[in-house]
């Protein structure tokens, strides 16, 4: 626009005339108003209140028997909640970190005083399939955790990857114990 042929009636080059200042203020105010309006339109595409309301899921864990696990949905993703037996807990804790593909201590993957509960995002870190292993009758792989039928990745009782092609441990969702009987995911 700087060199358009239309005369803009500016003052001499280098001088900011009163007319220029006024135009500047007006233009700036209009731009700010326009931006504020545009923001409301853009923000409307952010998650709506009903979607946000479902962003946390509460779960009563008392019906889950030892050695078994369930799957719940949180934010569209499968969440594994498994009630580990003392043997499974010991197996998870005794592993040497150097043996792990993705080293992480079991204690970092459970809540204090709740080692019998492991809560994981049930999406294989290879290409996104949902591994098997919640029910005792499911194939659980050689480490007693989970087995992904798509390409053969295997996870231990802490959800850590022990056999590829998956590169990383099963991810942990944000969760907390409301009481010993209830967890809130998200």
């Amino acid at each position: 626009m700087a060199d358009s042929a239309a005369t803009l009636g500016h003052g001499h080059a280098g001088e900011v005339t009163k007319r220029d200042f006024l135009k500047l203020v007006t233009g700036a105010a209009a731009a700010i108003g326009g931006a504020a309006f545009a923001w409301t339109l853009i923000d409307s595409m952010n998650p709506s209140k009903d979607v946000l309301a479902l962003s946390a899921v509460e779960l009563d864990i008392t019906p889950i028997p030892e050695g078994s696990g369930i799957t719940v949905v949180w934010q569209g993703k499968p969440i594994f909640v498994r009630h580990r037996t003392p043997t499974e807990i010991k197996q998870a804790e005794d592993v040497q970190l150097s043996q792990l593909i993705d080293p992480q201590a079991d204690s970092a993957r459970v809540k204090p005083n709740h080692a019998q509960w492991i809560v994981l995002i049930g999406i294989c870190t290879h290409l996104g399939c949902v591994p098997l292993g919640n029910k005792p009758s499911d194939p659980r792989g050689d480490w007693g955790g989970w087995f992904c039928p798509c390409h053969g990745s295997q996870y231990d009782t802490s959800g850590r990857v022990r056999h590829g092609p998956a590169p990383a441990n099963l991810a942990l969702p944000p969760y907390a114990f409301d009481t010993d009987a209830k967890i809130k995911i998200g």
Partner: protein
Amino acid sequence: MRALRSIFAALLLGGLAAAPTLAQEAPTPPQQQWSWEGPFGTFDLAAAQRGFQVYSEVCSACHSMKQLHYRDLAGIGLSLQEITAIAAAVTVPQGVDDQGQPKEGPATPGSQFRSPFPNEQAARAAENGALPPDLSVIVNGREGHADYIYAILTGFAAPPPTFTMQGGMNYNEYFPGHQIAMPQPLHDGQVAYTDGTPNTVAQMSHDVVTFMAWAANPELVERKQIGWRVVLFLVVMTGLTYAVKRKVWADVDH
């Protein structure tokens, strides 16, 4: 003069011809004062909370409010704790169990308000064929708006001696045609208010109408607040653009 008289006669006759339809109408509901009216209006949250109590204890037996979720009650000043407790006390459908049978359970803040009937047919069966309308947006959905709803709630009376009532109907001063299927829902002392407000029919009606007005327009306060800022901004912009226009046009004979 003769022509004028004919015109007048025609108008009068025309007006009279319109009169029979007037008999189907009801008197205009008297104007009330509402806290949310006017450009600076807000909802009286205490009244809205009492109104929610009236809805829960009386109206919800027959009327659904499907567009509302328990989490929305934060808009009338209830805390998340209070809302969770209110929801947990209500049993709502919760999909199907592992056997495929429909199951119920306590509501959560994210649940829709509990409906008294699962569908229209069940409602009509329970209400002598009448369908209690959903109340979510009824304040917007009736001519006369809040004044009209208030007039209906306070307008139950004995029918005048010359008026023939149909069986099962109730006389109401302000309902068009004067016969409404709903029996008088509110009576003095019916709902126990905890904040000491007298629980007369007029007060309960006022409170429940406030609640329903909020339910129909929950964005009202934010809308008017933003509105003032926008109007102020535009008034300033009009002044600024007009000043620029005058300056730009100063050198043109026009």
